[in-house]
């Protein structure tokens, strides 16, 4: 056996198992899902017939699915923007926003405590977050925290049956998702900001830069790489939103299905309506949309890389 042959064998030995496992457990489900989406399989029996693109045509005409799609669009646009802006703002205040009398560059007073507090939601499971916020927005006689607080401060006029108003539902989901994700981005951006040399901030201080200007012109450009990664990750998370919606609003997406998202719709079609074929079609749609969103965000946010000297 010559040397060349031996080397290929060596490489193949190490390459084949991981590629094989990836193919079996990652790629084949996609292929299967695409196939199932072109059948009328109920998921309960072995019987399935190939029906081509019928499920996709049905999606095109499904009003409830349009509602879910619209809600996903709101989530994917609003949640990342809110989360990243808040995350950047908090991280900046925790790391470089403080101004002691001596002018040294530090976080605001008590920042080490805030850092822990912001991370709390991240250690709670989504299920608990969902249940907690169900109570927050519940009617007053069912323990609704928000309504009680509004009542206590004399703002009775603002009390609502929050989860019974179709128009509010998706915005409540936006709020809950932002609340639960922001801590992670505070930690992520904090790490990026810690890597910026202190003397750059001192130079900005001497140049007369205010906190806001420093944030806009120095901090944000220097952590932009991290923001970009965070944005893509956040968009993918917001595209999902299944757990939060399912736990807070139920399998139908709340009153009149107004808080429906694609994930919940897929789950409903598969396990409540016993229509695996249609559910698989929704899954394929989600795959395509998530990929498109990720690519668009990565393209749109691309800037020249900044190297910290």
């Amino acid at each position, binding site marked *: 056996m010559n040397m060349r042959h031996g080397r290929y064998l060596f490489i193949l030995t190490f390459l084949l198992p991981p590629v094989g496992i990836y193919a079996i457990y990652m790629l084949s489900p996609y292929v299967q899902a695409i196939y199932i989406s072109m059948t009328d399989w109920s998921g309960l029996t072995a019987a399935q017939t190939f029906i081509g693109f019928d499920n996709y045509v049905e999606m095109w005409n499904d009003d409830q699915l349009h509602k879910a799609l619209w809600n996903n669009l709101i989530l994917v646009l609003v949640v990342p923007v809110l989360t990243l802006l808040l995350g950047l703002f908090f991280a900046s205040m925790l790391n470089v926003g403080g101004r002691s*009398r*001596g002018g040294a560059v530090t976080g605001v007073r008590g920042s080490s405590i805030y850092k822990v507090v912001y991370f709390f939601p991240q250690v709670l499971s989504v299920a608990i977050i969902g249940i907690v916020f169900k109570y927050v927005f519940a009617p007053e006689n069912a323990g609704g925290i928000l309504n009680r607080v509004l009542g206590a401060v004399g703002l009775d006029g603002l009390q609502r049956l929050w989860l019974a108003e179709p128009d509010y539902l998706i915005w409540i989901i936006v709020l809950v998702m932002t609340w639960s994700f922001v801590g992670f981005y505070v930690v992520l951006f904090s790490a990026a900001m810690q890597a910026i*040399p202190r003397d750059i901030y001192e130079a900005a201080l001497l140049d007369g830069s205010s906190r806001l*200007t420093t944030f806009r012109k120095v901090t944000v450009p220097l952590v932009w790489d991290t923001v970009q990664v965070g944005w893509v990750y956040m968009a993918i998370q917001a595209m999902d939103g299944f757990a939060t919606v399912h736990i807070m609003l139920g399998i139908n997406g709340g009153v009149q299905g107004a808080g429906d998202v694609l994930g919940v719709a897929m789950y409903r079609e598969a396990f409540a309506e016993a229509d695996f074929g249609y559910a698989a079609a929704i899954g394929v749609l989600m795959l395509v949309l998530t990929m498109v969103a990720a690519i668009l965000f990565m393209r749109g946010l691309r800037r020249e890389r900044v190297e910290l000297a």
Partner: protein
Amino acid sequence: MATVTFDKATRIYPGTDKPAVDALDLAIEDGEFLVLVGPSGCGKSTSLRMLAGLEEVDGGAIRIGDRDVTHMPPKDRDIAMVFQNYALYPHMTVADNMGFALKIAGVSKDEIRRRVGDAAKLLDLTEYLDRKPKALSGGQRQRVAMGRAIVREPQVFLMDEPLSNLDAKLRVSTRTQIASLQRRLGITTVYVTHDQVEAMTMGDRVAVLNAGLLQQVDSPLGLYDKPSNVFVAGFIGSPAMNIATFDVKDGRATLGNADVAIPASIAAKVAEEGSDTVVLGFRPESLTPASSEETGGIPVLVDVVEELGSDAYVYGRPAGPAAEEQADRLRSDQIIARVEPRNAPQKGEKINFTVRQGSEHFFSVKTGERLEP
């Protein structure tokens, strides 16, 4: 243009008792180039950062001109600083880096362009204005940092070891550029360095700090010729001064068979403080090789000879009959002497050095202060 006054300025870092800067009293004149020098941890950078407003002042006051800036935020002090690592904004071009402060101050675009252009011309940076810092060499980055300070046209320049990241050759040429630039602009400058050669070559006056305390402020030659205490004597001068403790007896200072005549006034002062020893310092150039039959010299065994062309230095250790005592009493572990470069001894040779009369420095054994004849 302004004077800078440190008035018993003190900085105590939280969690420590010992001040990092202890009651610093220093008056810097308008247009002066003052160098703060000292070993690491002596408080020189802290003093500069106190003046910049980047470090709190725990006691005393700092004034720029007539303004008390002790607790003023940095941006209101009308100063510009050059940092050791330059602290350029990595995401901005050279022009934006230099114009950032003006842009914040609301200066018009044309004015910014003019002033940045002028500074760039002065520093030979015109062709690099559109580049980012990462595309510049170390020396160019250093000049951009200088440019950023110049463009501001501040009352005071602060420089925190701006040359320490440059290679040796560039450091020497930039040293002269900065000094001549400062003289041309006439802006009061406070310059921090740990390198005493930099201090001596650049400063109008040099302030020597040690352990948070100001040791002496004087012109470079003043420091060299009349160091006010043992620390300054040992710190200023390259190679360093030889310092040893000598016995005082009958108007002469002796150490083993080394014997130096001392003025009567010095002997009187030593007697006055009730001691019978004196610290004697002599620079390498004050030692002259003597013919071996002469007495009163210090026999030195040559360890290393540094031949620099214009000078040659002998590094050795005492090798006479009283070598052990002499070595014990020396502040450093070697004796350094300047010799004729074209006639330098070989290592391993033994030479008898005598101290040239009148070139010695005397210091009190008890206080370390200079004793003036």
